[in-house]
């Protein structure tokens, strides 16, 4: 059986180019980048070249990029260290109700320590209202952390407008761009972004690798302390092969590639929606299908069929989709994103799946998916 992987928002396969590059580094470049001698200098050069390439990908300066162990570490660092270092200026933080757990959990920890967190609501399309943010902002606000795009429904946040709004406010602006990086053009200068998180394994790079962009004027004590690596902003022996692999993954996605991917994924979404309609499937899209959203994520409400049953049946047919965000480690608790969009009582909470596309997803696979899911839905409906 051919297996079809439609869960690229959870993780992506590593690109052959990336793995080849990492193998080269594993075999030939193994000095510790912080040591004095030539082997170390070679590591150091690769490290800095990678940093440069990655900095350019978001229009940042090289020294604004700090490599981390992934999206979760980047988010934790941005939130916890901002809170720790700025609490004298206020204890108020603004976020949205649909952030990833890597943002929500550190915020909950801060709430327990006496910080006040405002969770901006979203509408049925998964969008926030800028006015809500304006209303929530006060003199005590030290951080606004709002994702660039959502991992479950693909909605996008008005990053540019938020950046403009906060430009003259004391609050630092952090955005979790884990899902958006590699798909959208990001310009931290034009958008006045102070901090930005990414994760390599979402863009065909290695796992447990990411970066936190930190605007030059932002300073706080490093989250992981020890040696002087990463300009004293993240201790630990540098993972040079991983960093180089990350840079290679980034180099595979230029501005054109991003546009092409967005267009291709949008086309896939239309194919699925049209296909299911033609096949008479009773369904609705959770969120909005709009060319500017994160088009690799499509969240479907299949009316009357439980997420778990549908996901299992698809899996038996060799098709991998998600029942929500994979990162809620193995659990099938209700999606906080769908709850925020439709309320706890909505039947959508227990009857939705997330389909997410990647670099290697083909039109043929999408057609197979449409056929298979239709068959399964018809079979399951008959049994009801």
């Amino acid at each position, binding site marked *: 059986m051919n297996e079809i992987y439609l869960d690229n928002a959870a993780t992506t396969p590593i690109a052959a180019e990336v793995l080849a590059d990492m193998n080269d580094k594993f075999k030939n470049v193994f000095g510790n980048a912080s040591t004095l001698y030539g082997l170390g200098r070679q590591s150091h050069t690769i490290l800095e070249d990678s940093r440069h390439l990655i900095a350019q990908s978001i229009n940042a300066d090289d020294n604004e990029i700090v490599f981390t162990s992934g999206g979760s570490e980047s988010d934790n660092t941005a939130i916890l260290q901002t809170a720790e270092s700025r609490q004298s200026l206020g204890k108020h933080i603004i976020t949205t109700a649909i952030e990833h757990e890597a943002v929500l959990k550190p915020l909950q920890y801060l709430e327990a320590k006496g910080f006040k967190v405002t969770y901006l609501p979203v509408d049925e399309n998964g969008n926030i209202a800028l006015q809500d943010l304006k209303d929530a902002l006060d003199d005590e606000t030290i951080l606004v952390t709002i994702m660039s795009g959502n991992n479950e429904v693909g909605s996008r946040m008005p990053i540019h407008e938020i950046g403009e709004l906060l430009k003259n406010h004391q609050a630092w602006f952090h955005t979790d761009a884990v899902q958006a990086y590699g798909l959208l053009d990001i310009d931290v200068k034009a958008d006045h972004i102070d901090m930005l998180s990414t994760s390599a394994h979402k863009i065909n790079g290695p*796992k447990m690798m990411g970066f936190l962009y930190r605007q030059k004027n932002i300073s706080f004590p490093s989250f*992981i*302390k*020890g040696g002087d690596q990463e300009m004293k902003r993240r201790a630990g022996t540098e993972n040079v092969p991983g960093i180089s692999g990350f840079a290679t993954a980034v180099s595979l996605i230029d501005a054109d590639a991003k546009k092409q991917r967005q267009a291709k994924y949008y086309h896939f979404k239309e194919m699925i929606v049209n296909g299911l309609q033609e096949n008479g499937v009773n369904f609705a899209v959770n969120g909005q299908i709009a060319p500017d959203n994160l088009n690799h994520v499509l969240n479907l409400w299949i009316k009357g069929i439980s997420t778990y049953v549908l996901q299992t049946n698809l899996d038996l047919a060799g098709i991998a989709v998600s029942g929500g965000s994979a990162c809620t480690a193995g659990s099938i608790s209700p999606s906080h994103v769908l709850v925020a969009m439709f309320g706890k009582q909505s039947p959508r909470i227990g009857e939705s799946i997330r389909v997410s596309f990647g670099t290697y997803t083909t039109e043929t696979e999408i057609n197979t998916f449409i056929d298979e899911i239709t068959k399964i839905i018809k079979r399951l409906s008959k049994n009801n």
Partner: protein
Amino acid sequence: MIYFDNSATTKVDPAVLDTYNQVSERIWGNPSSLHRFGEEAFNLLNQSRKQIADLLGVQPNEIFFTSGGTEGDNWVLKGTAIEKRKFGKHIITTAVEHPAIHETCEQLKKLGYDVTYLPVDKEGRISIEDLKNAIRKDTILVSIMAVNNEIGTIQPIKEAAEVLKDYPNVHYHIDAVQGIGKGIGELIMNDRVDFITFSGHKFHAPRGIGFIYKRAGKKIAPLMTGGGQEHNLRSGTENLPAIAAMAKAVRILLTNEQAKAQKQADIKSTIYNHIKDFDKVTIFSKNQANFAPHILCFSILGVRGETIVHAFEDHDIYISTTSACSSKDHVPSATLTAMQEPTELCTSAVRVSLDANNTIEEAEEFNRVFDQLYQKFSKLS
């Protein structure tokens, strides 16, 4: 090329790299996903965890994966500080810890914790008496490294374990980043230790992966929160290729461990016995059982550590000043400073660090080069 800087980092073993590649290509799913890609990944994750646990003689649910030694050290210290703050705010460690411990303790001090740094003797070793005297009612953590990364002193971690049996509520942490696979497993995996830090890249696994041992039932707060991976104690999508590769690296490391440790001790002796008679040479690492077999730290009076490192590099021999993480700042060795060695020795120390792939022949070649360089340095000064 002779690579004598294995305490800084090691080259990935070809068999380990093979595992990394195979898993990357075949089992790249997210272990948290509830479909076959996820299930395969989940199974391999558990299998790797079990393999490491078995090799260390502990339970799989006592192994937690991290991004490396530094994260592990930070986690255990801060996690204990947060978890146990209602019981007290006193932490005991040594004056010769790696910066991953030292800097974290300094941060905790700023947050209101009280840290006792146990002093060391001329061999870089703490005394058990000092440890006993330092323990207070409000002590929540004792953190001692197994092997010092600069000069190779083995700390009395087993004796400390005996002492701490009288204080069952105090968390006992061992930084074993330099200790694993060096023939002292029995000391590290003692019956009192609660937490142990390990780092993959020090034993031929990839960089950016490590793990901690956490005794079942002992509690620490997570450092990294989010998706709830690793039993809600370490969030972030798991690096399965590196984890499976590390499991293999542990297996290779611990196969014939004693014989390989002896081999390193012999290589160390070969150099030790050769350089010890030179007038201007001071050797800080002793050639005896309470020093690790793989680290030899010495200085040549009047010659800066950097100069020695570069001179050897010209002969394609790679050694380092005492600690990779701070070598660029020309700071004196923290360990030697704690041992109260004179400053000129603290800035001239270099470290030879071995592993099982090194050979006696390499040591002999090192000695030949040493002779040449020593003559050159002597003429200069």
